């Protein structure tokens, strides 16, 4: 590989380079990081945030933001535990549709519309659960389990959602319109795209993905909790941004988001393996997020 192509590769995959560097640093300081079991654990640990972040990628590419994904995940998991998993997915998609309707037809800023949903969905979770965790049925529990000891289903689901996200973004009209809307909404409108209708679908997809993430999370615990996934929306946004998407819209890829989610999971795993005191871990995680975003902005100059 010539110098130029290495350089081009690196600049297109800044997040990937960061992930590899992070892994090398941790592995040198604590070789146990590279245990097959530990690497599988990291994959499983990344799955929930990754699936949520894939849904967030659609919204961010289209120039929006979705603060309600953590609450939607909790609500979908709770509905799934109290009734059946598929109904949880339906509820998640419905919440997303409401977000989309508020943004496109109600003309609310996405930040406010989804902030409202964050509160409504969390509240409904508490109402339905009566504040108690509820056991999940065999189907949902299966989502969080291992097919064989070395084949955890959450990891496979993460890869499946990764594939679906890549396909939607690059191979469908909806995906191309996401970039168009996020790049320049006026231009998209003038070119004949029904922006409002597209946004309905975009937020519904985000709600659906969040619901799937919630079911995986509940499956891992064998139980849906009223306080599950609090604050996960911020991790999901961080994963998308670390992955190189722009919060002003029009830029973002499935690969980047996957790498972003892995960076967060590797960091959390590595910091514990290296026995970094818990209070310092939060400082380091914040600093790494800032650095990743900084790298990205330097690259774009």
């Amino acid at each position: 590989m010539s110098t130029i192509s290495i350089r081009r590769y690196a600049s297109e995959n800044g997040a990937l380079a960061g992930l590899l560097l992070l892994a090398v640093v941790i592995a040198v300081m604590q070789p146990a990081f590279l245990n097959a079991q530990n690497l599988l654990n990291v994959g499983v640990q990344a799955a929930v945030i990754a699936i949520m972040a894939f849904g967030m990628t659609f919204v961010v590419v289209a120039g929006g933001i979705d603060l309600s994904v953590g609450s939607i995940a909790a609500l979908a998991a709770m509905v799934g535990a109290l009734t059946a998993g598929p109904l949880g997915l339906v509820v998640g998609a419905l919440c997303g549709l409401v977000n989309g309707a508020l943004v496109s037809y109600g003309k609310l800023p996405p930040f406010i519309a989804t902030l409202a949903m964050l509160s409504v969905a969390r509240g409904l979770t508490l109402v339905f659960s009566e504040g108690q965790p509820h056991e999940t049925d065999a189907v949902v529990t299966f989502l969080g389990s291992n097919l064989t000891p070395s084949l955890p289903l959450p990891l496979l689901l993460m890869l499946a959602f990764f594939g679906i996200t890549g396909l939607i973004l690059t191979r469908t009209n909806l995906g191309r319109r996401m970039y168009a809307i996020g790049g320049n909404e006026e231009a998209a409108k003038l070119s004949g795209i029904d922006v409002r209708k597209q946004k309905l679908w975009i937020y519904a997809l985000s709600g659906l993905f969040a619901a799937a993430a919630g079911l995986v999370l509940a499956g891992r615990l064998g139980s849906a909790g009223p306080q599950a996934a609090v604050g996960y929306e911020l991790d999901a946004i961080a994963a998308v941004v670390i992955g190189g998407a722009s919060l002003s819209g029009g830029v973002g890829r499935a690969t980047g988001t996957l790498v972003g989610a892995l960076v967060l999971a590797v960091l959390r795993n590595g910091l514990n393996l290296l026995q970094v005191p818990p209070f310092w871990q939060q400082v380091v995680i914040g600093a790494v997020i800032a650095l990743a975003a900084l790298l990205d902005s330097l690259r774009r100059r």
Partner: protein
Amino acid sequence: MKVTRRIALTLGAAALLATGCSGTGASGGQITIGLAVSTLNNPFFVELQQGAQEMANQLGAKLTVVDAQNDATNQVNQVQTLVTQGVKAIILNPVDSKQAAPAAKAAEMANIPLISVDRAVEGGKVAAEVASNNVSGGSLAAIELGRATSGEVAHLKGISGASASRDRGQGFEQGLNSGNIKVVATAVADFDRAKALNETTNLLQGHPSLKGIFAENDEMALGAIKALGARAGKDVMVVGFDGTPDGLKAIQDGTLAATIAQQPKLLGSKAVEQAVKAAKGEAVQQVVDVEVKVITKQNVAEFTK
């Protein structure tokens, strides 16, 4: 040029990571114990951790602490990581008793003995259980409130769905019939002093003849006392839970009628004692009950030294 700058930045990140680390090499023969705490964003669990650290130092064991920040899934992840690290015993302080089984299973599959502390692990195998009973503590609070006052009382609840809130609230309701008090209002204040101030202010509007308040932790009790102003400890009695330094001070001042003290340091140190025994393959005590204590003006001096 750009590439150089990028590399410099990334190396900066690595350096940052490195400086945050304590020594990782386990010295020969020393037992390493993992402590998975529910949250360190709460003085109670910080004290529990301190008690554990002191006992570990005393017994010559090494303690690795991880903080789940009140997230049950994160806690499962962290227990898996402790297993990878090869610790000899794991002390688990569950985020939620009912959601702790997968974490317990991760330890069980690796044949690492598990000691639960402060909260039980439902549906999982533990070698020893070190706890104070939150339910019986809640009942004690109801009895104390019934002793201090009679008539209409209010119940300030912690975070909806949190196990400490469930247990204390349940115990309180069970203990109610002992005195002559009746709950006429409940409000959720998330264990938070500022929220309790607002909620109590609102409650007093609707129930001006309130005679007592039970708050599921001292922070909320102190918020309620702030809202009551001069009425606190005079015609409205407040009972808290935890026995934090601020709570004890309020008891001395006469604004807080009583608090139910757990002994977090003792919880931590007893847990490490059992963990080290389990790690060495010695017999452990399966249930270690760390007493909760009712603190009132009469005995507060014993706790403030």
